[in-house]
């Protein structure tokens, strides 16, 4: 009897996994905008081959500006309450530093060090799928103060603004800046979330919008205009595969030369089936299908690289 109950329970659990596979959840992180960092003096200036370049110094901003910390903490708190906890910028920066220190000291028993290519080093930055970019300015009219608040949700891969909320609060004679900031967060975050929810709804209905870059190694004997692989040039064969493997064949070819192709607004499905169950799909897994297609049909070797949930790069002509 017990075995029967156990079998039934397992069957129910398995079937619910098959029916209700969960999509990969995007990570969101709040960062102060470049504009805010520049206005408040949190920029690092360096000489980039003769050109003066300014980049935001998030660490300094978080260490020195309590108002920024308050706003980030308030938004984190409210988002966690909505069942969508965010990645914390300060913790991410600390983890990166700690990992870098540990990696530098790590050694195998045989005295070997960790493998790290220049590209691995470049990729060691705080990452998120959606950036919540924050800007505020304090407006002063005589003794009155008000806050103009701007929150932008930016997709890290498509560079599209997927959500936003902005506005100026009611001027106040007495309220202090932290109080005005809290009020601004409380009055804008719900509207921001409505737009974010619309973005997610669109994703569930039409697939995840991602970017695919195709490149070629200069050691490769062919290029994307080669027509030896089928009834058309390789570039068009690639387009055909993408059309067949996107939701409603939706994608745009933004750029195409003999050496590279850029596909934008590529709508990939959220799930794929494996061993009878639905699993969440990301761009790497999806582009892996293209990599296999090229190898199986045309014996083209390629190297697949990823950037978060929404961008993949495939370099043809070798690993």
């Amino acid at each position, binding site marked *: 009897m017990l075995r029967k109950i156990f079998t039934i329970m397992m069957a129910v659990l398995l079937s619910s996994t098959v029916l209700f596979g*969960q*999509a*990969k*959840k*995007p990570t969101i992180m709040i960062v102060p905008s470049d504009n805010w960092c520049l206005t408040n003096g949190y920029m690092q200036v360096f000489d980039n081959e003769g050109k003066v370049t300014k980049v935001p110094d998030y660490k300094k901003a978080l260490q020195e500006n309590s108002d920024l910390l308050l706003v980030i903490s308030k938004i984190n708190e*409210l*988002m966690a*309450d*909505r*069942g*969508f906890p965010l990645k914390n910028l300060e913790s991410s920066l600390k983890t990166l530093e700690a990992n870098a220190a540990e990696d530098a000291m790590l050694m195998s028993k045989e005295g070997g060090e960790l493998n790290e290519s220049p590209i691995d080093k470049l990729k060691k930055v705080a990452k998120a799928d959606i950036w919540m970019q924050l800007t505020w300015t304090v407006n002063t009219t005589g003794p009155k103060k008000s806050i103009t608040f701007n929150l932008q949700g930016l997709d890290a891969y498509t560079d599209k603004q997927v959500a936003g909320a902005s*506005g*100026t*609060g*009611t001027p106040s004679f007495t309220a202090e800046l932290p109080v005005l900031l809290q*009020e601004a967060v*409380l*009055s804008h975050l*719900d*509207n921001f*979330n*409505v737009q*974010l*929810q*619309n973005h*997610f*709804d669109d994703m*569930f209905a039409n697939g995840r919008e991602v970017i695919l870059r195709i490149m070629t190694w200069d050691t490769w004997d062919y290029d994307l205009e080669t027509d030896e692989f089928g009834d058309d040039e390789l570039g068009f064969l690639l387009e055909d595969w993408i059309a067949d493997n996107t939701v409603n064949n939706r994608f745009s070819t933004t750029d195409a030369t003999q050496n590279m192709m850029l596909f934008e607004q590529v709508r990939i499905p959220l799930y794929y089936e494996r061993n009878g169950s639905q699993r969440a799909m990301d761009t790497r897994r999806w582009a892996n299908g293209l990599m296999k297609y090229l190898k199986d049909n045309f014996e083209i070797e390629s190297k697949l690289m990823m950037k978060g949930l929404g961008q993949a790069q495939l370099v043809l002509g070798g690993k």
Partner: protein
Amino acid sequence: MNRLSILLIICAIFSFGTISAQKGQKKADNETNEWRYEVEVVGVGKQGTSQVKVWTYSENPETATNQAQKNAVHAIIFKGFPGTGGQQALARNPNIEQEKQEFFKEFFKDGGTFQKYVFLANNGVIGPGDRISMGKKEFKIGVVVSVNVAGLRKNLEQAGIIKGLSSGF
């Protein structure tokens, strides 16, 4: 006039009052369903709450005060609060009221669940400029109420009326 007649007259007066109040309430409910109310944001309340002024049309200030609470919850679910510090409607499907008719009938009945998420500010005292005569038998009455939007949203999410931000992930 004997005692029985006096008793009958008193009973008639009371029952007339009750019928009239019921009629007023029914009229107010119909007007809520027909979206005949106005809402403006007064301020951001404590975390998760919004303070709004609801303008309700009624012959009776008492009915207007009670109905203001229902109208405020109705507004944030279906219409949103306009203006600075305003909010968009919790339900993003414009047909949700018809699709989930049974749920909302129960939710908005007198003493229904909606009451858990709204309360009168200043004990429902109507400000001096918030009682506007609209004709012989009607007033437009402004009442300030606080709506627990966060709690209301959670209730609707749990009931499957609206989707949560992380649903599907």
